[in-house]
């Protein structure tokens, strides 16, 4: 197939582009929960975002109950791209949508979460469990910061953590429980590390993300840069659990690869216009 950049990769680009475009309103009723002056918009648009996203997924998968929720209640094995696209659609809507759109999206996720319950290894779990929600939340926020720091433009960590608290609240976490600065975010993650483990599902997830099947050799070459960037960005305990070593990476090379990926994303119809809507609002802010 010479038309695409590789089956799943092209599919993912196409579907996350569609999600992104749909999430950026043409005539927003309000600035949403973050707004054009926020650190959150800055981080979401950082060149490093794909690395941050993959890092977050790899960290999240290491919590056996969080992983079990996905594994036992979604068809991610049959349609991994669909699952990733749905997540990116949700994140984009909460970030760039107006409040009504963000509320609708969050309500939908909360409804789905109500049915995501079960047991794993004899241990009961529920997707509405604040600890699991906060694990997913904290690793995402932590990854956004790590990505910017390593491969993008560093962001104000405390401000970002503070702003992002609302996204955990939207999913039903009581506000006092949500980390409100960078230190409390780190310590929350650290306290959960002893609970983490590499389950077979986590191993499969990592294998898929780090080495997506069906990529052309040429794409695989480029993906290697991104993968190495993700690995080097992971906390040491995560690498240990996966049994992986931190590779050597050159920042310039990673940024170049991210730039190419971004150019491909920009090549999807409508992405440029959606970005311009964001830029114009950020400039007006």
């Amino acid at each position: 197939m010479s038309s695409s950049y590789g089956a799943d990769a092209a599919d993912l680009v196409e579907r996350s582009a569609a999600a992104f475009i749909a999430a950026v309103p043409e005539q927003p009723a309000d600035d949403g929960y973050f707004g054009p002056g926020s650190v959150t918009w800055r981080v979401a648009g950082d060149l490093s975002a794909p690395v941050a996203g993959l890092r977050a997924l790899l960290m999240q998968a290491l919590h056996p109950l969080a992983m079990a929720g996905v594994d036992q209640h979604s068809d991610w094995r049959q349609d991994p791209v669909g699952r990733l696209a749905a997540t990116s659609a949700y994140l984009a809507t909460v970030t760039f949508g107006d409040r009504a759109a963000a509320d609708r999206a969050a309500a939908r996720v909360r409804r789905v979460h109500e049915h995501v319950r079960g047991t794993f290894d004899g241990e009961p779990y529920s997707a509405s469990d604040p600890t699991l929600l906060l694990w997913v939340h904290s690793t995402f926020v932590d990854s956004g910061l790590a990505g910017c720091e390593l491969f993008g433009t560093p962001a104000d960590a405390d401000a970002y953590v503070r702003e992002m608290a609302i996204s955990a609240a939207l999913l039903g976490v009581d506000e006092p429980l949500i980390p409100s600065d960078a230190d409390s975010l780190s310590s929350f993650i650290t306290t959960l590390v002893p609970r983490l483990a590499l389950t077979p599902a986590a191993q499969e997830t990592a294998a898929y993300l780090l080495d997506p099947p069906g990529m052309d050799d040429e794409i695989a070459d480029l993906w290697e840069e991104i993968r190495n960037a993700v690995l080097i960005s992971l906390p040491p305990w995560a690498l240990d659990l996966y049994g992986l070593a931190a590779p050597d990476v050159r920042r310039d090379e990673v940024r170049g690869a991210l730039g190419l990926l971004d150019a491909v994303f920009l090549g999807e119809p409508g992405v440029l216009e959606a970005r311009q809507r964001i830029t114009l609002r950020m400039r007006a802010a």
Partner: protein
Amino acid sequence: MTGRRRLRFARGLAAARLALRGGARYAGNAPRYLAAGLFAAAGEHRQQLREDLALRTAEDVAATLGTMKGVLMKLGQMASYIDDGLTPAARRTLSRLQDSVPPMSPSLASSVIRQELGDAPEEIFATWDPSPIAAASIGQVHRAITRDGRAVAVKVQYPGIAEMIAADLGNVALMRKMLRIMAPSQDVDGLLAELRERITEELDYRLEARNQQLFADYYRGHPTIHVPSIVPEYSGQRVVTSELADGARFSALTGRSAAERDLAAETIYRFVFRSLYEMHAFNGDPHPGNYLFGDGGRVTFLDFGLVKHFTDAEIAPLVSMVKYLCVEQDPAAFREAMVEAGFLLADAPVSTETVIDHMAVFYDTVRTPGRRTMTGSYASSVSRKFFDFHSPLAPYARIPRSYVILQRINLGLFALLGDLSATADWRRIAEEIWPFVQGPPSTPLGEAEVAWRSDATADRRA
């Protein structure tokens, strides 16, 4: 999903066919021709001239054109001579990317002028128009009037772009990976070398200024060819100033009478081949955005960012080829010249008839005298032949790197003349220009050239 992908693939194929079909070529790929003429109307490059999105700081420029995007943009501009190798997805990406670059804000453009020319543009020029009138490949064009009253076009480069692109080009491992994805069928190392050489040349406007002045000097006094002179005191590495030119765009020309179109076409034809055979130089960017049209066949040629100079040794076999095929009708000598140029392997096990059969199409318009109308289908048959990897000659044929740019004669010039349905006795015009014939003037335009040629000869002797 599959349905949509198939649709996109089909669109990609359609685009590829369009690219090979002369007539629709420019219409279909208009956005990628960013190195537009100085007078590209505001509407033609909407994105570039959107002031509300203007880049206001060096950081804005880095975010928009850094991390490989500037390189990709340049690759997109050069795509017309690697068209056959680019995947449809790559072509689409490159074309969108070219659309995505906004202009500099007035203050950012002004800061580049200050850096390059030592003072604010309002101080340097009697009048300075802070709004760009056109997008250029890695910069934009402003209008100004000098203190001594000359109207000029000032091309200003995005700050930091040269350094960013140079750094990205230096990232060889990544560049090779990128080219393997975008142009899997191409010789990646050859392409990379060509890209680096070309882009590096284009980043320094001083080279462009030298080339443009060379052409301006050569054609000074020519009845219909006009090349705006450089204003050296307002030119530097990132700013190049030339006299302001006026004229109609290509799109307006297609609505004029056949006689007017023929004259314009003849001027372009003479320009391309006089430059090649006499100056040993080829302006590698023959696309409609780089021409402004006046009456009576007058054409102003703009943008000399991509000029290839040939050595005598490089030109000689080209001249021999045309001579042996079209004038002396000596197939064996033609074949020998092809081998000498490196187009054909010395011991290729193919008959000379086969060689002639494959190559003749490139000389179709000049093998015999007589009026001929250039058509889109001729241009596209030439392109197809160029890209015909299934011909019996293909395994033994090569295009040496120094001639790669000549593909643009086929892709650009013939397509353009086809768009104009230009009619002339191309053979007689060519005979005027061929150094081994130097035939008498064959058209009124040829007559009008006589005075210019004797002046020019006198100049060269002086």
